[in-house]
């Protein structure tokens, strides 16, 4: 699944990242590298700190300690739109689109964000290349047939796919997905997993997921968080065989 990407090259690294909320420690001293071309899954039971870690990686808020380095550049403390412009795109855990706009318009706005932001004069209808790119992305995620429908009228699974198309609009060098299958039916989950596998063929993807089973088959590497700390890090086979992970996940002793 790593394709022909150069193995071992680091895209992003977290160095001693920790997060405190009003004295509550959500994340402590997480150090890891995300390698180029990998599909990395971050898993862990509820309250493990997955979402906190995800939010720090995507720039939603800065960590209270530690550094985030992206492509050799320290980006700790930068604002979220800067993360996006640098090449880190995220999709949200809760569906997050522009409900009253059409699917195409949703993606077109995301495409436009990388090039023009303060043009108050050019008519929108001249942005044909952006529309073309938006349609191409909708094709990729399987939404081309619904491209003129308003986002609010799409099915849940389709809205999630739309969101991924929006995340891809910036040609990100790191794609972060937060529980992309949350609330999906088994069929929708299947389709989403296929889509993610397809996207990961030539992209670096980090996936946060609650359900371990889902990611076992498709990930190159799995990171397990527990009580805000790094519990395990390795290939799916190693993780499956790891006693500590089993104990945490099954909630059983021994």
């Amino acid at each position, binding site marked *: 699944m790593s394709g022909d990407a150069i193995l071992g090259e680091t895209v992003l690294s977290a160095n001693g990242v920790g997060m405190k909320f009003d004295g509550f420690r959500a994340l402590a001293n997480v150090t890891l590298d995300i390698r180029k071309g990998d599909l990395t899954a971050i898993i862990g039971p509820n309250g493990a700190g997955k979402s906190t870690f995800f939010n720090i990686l995507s720039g939603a808020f800065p960590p209270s300690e530690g550094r985030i380095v992206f492509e050799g550049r320290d980006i700790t403390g930068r604002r979220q739109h800067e993360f996006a412009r640098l090449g880190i795109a995220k999709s949200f855990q809760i569906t997050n689109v522009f409900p009253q706009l059409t699917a195409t318009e949703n993606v077109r706005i995301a495409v436009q964000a990388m090039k023009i*932001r303060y*043009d108050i004069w050019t008519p929108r209808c001249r942005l044909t290349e952006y529309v073309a790119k938006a349609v191409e992305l909708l094709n990729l995620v399987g939404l081309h047939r619904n491209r003129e429908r308003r986002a609010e009228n799409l099915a849940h699974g389709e809205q999630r796919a739309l969101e991924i198309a929006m995340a891809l609009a910036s040609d990100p060098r790191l794609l972060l997905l937060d529980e992309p299958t949350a609330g999906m039916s088994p069929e929708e989950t299947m389709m989403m997993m296929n889509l993610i596998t397809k996207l990961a063929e030539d992209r670096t993807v980090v996936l946060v997921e609650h359900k371990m089973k889902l990611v076992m088959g498709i990930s190159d590497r799995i990171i397990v968080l527990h009580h805000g700390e790094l519990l395990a890090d390795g290939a799916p086979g190693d993780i499956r065989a790891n006693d500590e992970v089993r104990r945490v996940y099954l909630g059983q002793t021994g």
Partner: protein
Amino acid sequence: MSDIGIRVFGNQLAITIRVVARHRVAAVIATLVLLPWVVPYEALSVNILLFGLYAVGFNLVYGYTGLLSFGHAAFFGVGAYACGIAVATFDVNWLLAIALGTIVAGFVAMIMGGLAIRTRGIYFAMVTLALAQCVYYILYQWTDLTGGENGLRGVSVQAVNILGLELNLLDPMTKYYVMLVFVALALWIFSRILESPFGAVLEAIRENEKRARACGYDTLRTKWLAFVLSGMFCGLAGALYAIHLSIVPIETANYTMSGQAVMMALLGGMGTFFGPFIGAAAYLLLEDVLTLWTEHWQFFVGALFVFFVLFFPRGIWGSLLHWVQR
């Protein structure tokens, strides 16, 4: 038979509304050209024209970006005073004075927006209200420059010369059409802004600011720019108002003026191009009619406002648009 008549009328109305919505700038300007011929007297049509522009400017942040500002009186007031002082005290050319009013209002919006834009919802409304009150008190206290409580007098622009054409602004009809030229130009620019990629970003922020940020937009700066542009349109309306009245009453900067912008935009239909003018016309015509037989006209305007908020939150034009698009 009458049933068919109603249906035909309904279809005609629907077609008309669609045409107006599609050619919005042309439609609004055409309506404004005809306005003085249907409104009882010219002063009222000038008021509809200028308050309409004021409400349009306000609508950029309220209807299109989703920010409820309660401080737009500051821009209308500063636009009026800057233009008025330029003409009355410094004898500046009237065209230059109008430009000055617009720019100074934009500058005030830059400062007010810079301070307020980080806050949200009710806090944004309160901060803009408080800052507009500061502006009001500066205008009120600076008697030497503004005339204070008595207002600024002597903003007289009587005869103007446009490209060799001598126009007498004391003639109400001439005045109306001269003002209309400015309003039409402003509306055209406004429409371009809405149609631009920047206009698309404003819509995106109104729909989902968090997502817009994740897409890579600096939403604070975008909202700030929208606020400044909005302030400039309101400042232009104020500058024209000063020339229209030949004086600048201190009430132009009063907080009730901010409330009027909200009412007009809501009555007409927020986030629609035509709405603010319909709202301004409805508000001012109602005021005009009601003051004839009761001094408590504000009670009835208030009641109508509540009625619209409860039953037609899209406003007059917004509800019509929704009806044809259903």
